[in-house]
């Protein structure tokens, strides 16, 4: 046996497939945000201590550690704070490359989130670009960011760097 083992060499790989399923508890604040998406609107929350508006809010202010309880309805437009152009294919990719992935700061919010930018050639994206959300049809709205198809330029002049430099 020993000879046979040494001829075959050491075992270097062992596949032990693992799959676990979990339920998700978004929480009180994030549930409000998700229900807002179901209505086609962005709902954030303001910290009563520092005044910052988080969208989505996770229920507490990560700076002050207090519960955020004031709901704030935000508009449909925002500013691209930073972006990248994705040229690399990867497993599970659902969007045709190249495409633009951007951090978007909604007007009135103090927290940017990631969004897809469409309806613009990839070489024309820039920091400060004003964009607006394009939602799925009303009948297809669900409590998920999938309700936002993408963001596109809204035609306004670029935002002044000073207005978003804190959010890069």
């Amino acid at each position, binding site marked *: 046996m020993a000879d046979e083992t040494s001829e075959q060499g050491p075992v270097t790989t062992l596949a032990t497939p693992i799959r676990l399923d*979990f339920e998700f*508890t*978004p*929480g*009180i604040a994030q549930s409000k945000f998700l229900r807002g998406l179901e209505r086609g609107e962005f709902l954030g929350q303001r910290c009563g201590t520092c005044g910052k508006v988080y969208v989505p809010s*996770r*229920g507490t*202010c990560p*700076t002050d550690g207090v*519960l955020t309880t004031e709901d704030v309805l935000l508009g449909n437009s925002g500013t691209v704070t930073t972006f990248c152009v994705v040229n690399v294919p990867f497993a599970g990719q659902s969007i045709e490359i190249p495409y633009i992935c951007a951090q978007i700061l909604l007007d009135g919010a103090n927290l940017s989130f990631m969004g897809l930018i469409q309806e613009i050639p990839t070489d024309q994206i820039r920091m400060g670009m004003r964009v607006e959300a394009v939602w799925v049809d009303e009948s297809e709205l669900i409590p998920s960011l999938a309700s936002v198809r993408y963001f596109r330029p809204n035609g306004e002049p670029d935002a002044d760097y000073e207005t978003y430099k804190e959010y890069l």
Partner: protein
Amino acid sequence: MSAAGRTVRPVSIASFAQSRSVRRDNERNEAEGLHPVIAEVFGNIGITKDDVDFICSGSTDYLIGGPFSFVMALDAIGVWPPRSESHVEMDGAWAMYEAWVLLQEGEIDAALVYSFGRSSLGDLNEILTLQLDPYYEAPLWPDIVSLSALQARALIDSGKATEADFAAIASRSRRDALGNPNAQVAKDVPVEVLLEDDYVVAPLRRHTLPPITDGAAAIVLAAGDKATQWSERPVWITGFDHRMETHSLGARDLTSSPSVTKAAEVAGVADGKIDIAELHTPFAHQEVIVKEALGLDDSVVINPSGGPLAANPLMSAGLIRIGEAASRIRAGQADRAVAHATSGPCLQQNLVCVLEGA
């Protein structure tokens, strides 16, 4: 003060808070669930996050199924300006050990320790399989109830305990839990009725298993002037140690716990009379093993809170044992107590903490 684990610098448990233990918290996320616990643990002694020098937490992402859940949980505290913070993928009792070591070094005077356990979001039996040896044991998916049943069977065969003993432990625990407003399972059911339960995995009947629990807990540790300023009756940690046994279940005698015995020796459990013991023994039979390994006699009141058979929020249940023991000393119901925490399959890793009133 000769043994390595004996306290060199006195450290007190200045405050303790815990959430209610529930089968499932459907409403709140981790930060929202922790927030009131953190607020209470600070509020009890009138301090804020600015009064602690270090934060340490115990939790595991495997329970929630999301990466960096321990970082998200920090939102419950608000770690700005940047704080000195650490995390262990262990029960919060081990997070408390890390904070205690830092306090021993004398660089800090106060620490916040917290833990949160969301046992309800996945199949706990399957999740716990992943703590096993990944090559030879985990691929077989032996669930934690079956592994614990192997241990219970070995214990019965050794002559150290019977199924009626297990039922007596479960009956006592859940009866005691009637006095614990945070407990999840509290009821007075006599042994003979419990013994009519069906087996889940023989020889374990339903009542010998811990409930599946969501819950959170927090403790503030203090040394130096803060220890006496923050408590009229400080509860001192006089011994603290943790030990582990081999990963391989087949290499262990599952009916004894040399790691508990060693930790108890280093922590000085036998140096004085123990009034109460809060033991993190999620399966009823494990109380028999840990009680023997700690060298406790029948005069010691075990798990007056109801223990983990009444509420077992994974990752928090050990820290809660320490908090419950400290609360009883602070209330004057005990002078000296031992708290125990466990992690891993069949009591693989164990922590022992000895507490004394002023």
